[in-house]
């Protein structure tokens, strides 16, 4: 490995490669993005057709369905649905990334992984708690918007420690979240684009760029 004759090109290449490998989590697999997107699609279908009765569930400002029923059942099932989507997506992310790490002979659980997770979790957990507060305060209108914006912020924050696609996925989610706040009746649609379609698109791009 010792170079007596100076080879600046190779030297710079080594430097760049080691800087990237030591500061970025490169085990993140595009497949976990695709899997998360599919989970979100399934979750959205369940929410629309089974929980919201194809959009036929209407309620007034006090979250009462005409006839005076409360919407607590709907809110509970929406929360359950979203948690299941999150759970499966996280399991998928762990599974596919561990597989990628094993294949390329890299360690999965390093200081870098921890740093990435901490940076991801701070905005994500805050957003999750805030989402639950909105849910229990009967404020369903801005739910999609809040979820997308906080998720986008988490990705932008964690993007420093992994592939740059994550940074751009984060920005996309923030924009979608803002749009979901403007076009308030299309929350579920924007949610499905953000968590379903965009995960699949970015996951596919990452897979072809870094795993082929």
């Amino acid at each position, binding site marked *: *490995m010792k170079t007596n004759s100076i080879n600046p090109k190779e030297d710079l290449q*080594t*430097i760049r490669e080691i800087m990237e490998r030591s500061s970025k989590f490169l085990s993140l697999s595009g497949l976990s993005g695709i899997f998360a997107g599919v989970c979100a699609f399934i979750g959205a279908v369940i929410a629309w057709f089974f929980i919201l009765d194809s959009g036929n569930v209407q309620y007034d400002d006090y979250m009462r369905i005409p006839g005076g029923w409360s919407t607590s059942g709907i809110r509970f099932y929406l929360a359950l649905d979203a948690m299941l989507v999150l759970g499966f997506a996280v399991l998928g992310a762990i599974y596919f990334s561990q597989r990628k790490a094993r294949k390329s002979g890299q360690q999965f659980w390093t200081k870098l992984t921890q740093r990435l997770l901490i940076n991801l979790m701070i905005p994500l957990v805050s957003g999750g708690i805030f989402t639950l507060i909105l849910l229990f305060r009967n404020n369903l209108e801005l739910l999609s918007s809040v979820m997308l914006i906080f998720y986008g912020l988490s990705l932008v924050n964690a993007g420093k420690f992994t592939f740059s696609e994550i940074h751009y996925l984060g920005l996309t989610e923030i924009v979608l979240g803002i749009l979901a706040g403007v076009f308030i009746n299309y929350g579920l649609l924007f949610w499905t684009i953000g968590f379903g379609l965009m995960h699949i698109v970015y996951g596919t791009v990452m897979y072809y760029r870094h795993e082929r």
Partner: protein
Amino acid sequence: MKNPISNLQKVFESRIRLGIMSALMVNDSVDFNALKELLGLTDGNLASHLKALEQQEIILVSKQFIGRKPSTTYKATDRGRELFRKHLAALEKLINNQ
């Protein structure tokens, strides 16, 4: 014109030291085992290069205990960062002159 080679640092001629420094430039601190894995070196080989860098005050060594396990971490000094930057600039100049 000044010869760019005069800015190349003798201490970074070894690819291994270059590798160690690259990792320390983008991280606050890195421990021995992480460096070992990153560069794929044996304990002895890595230790001798670290010692050389330490003697030239390019890196700072600190030893502490995590629980009962001793852990040695390394940091780039300001002087080390400056020298590395000079070395990088010289390498780039060499490429551009080719």
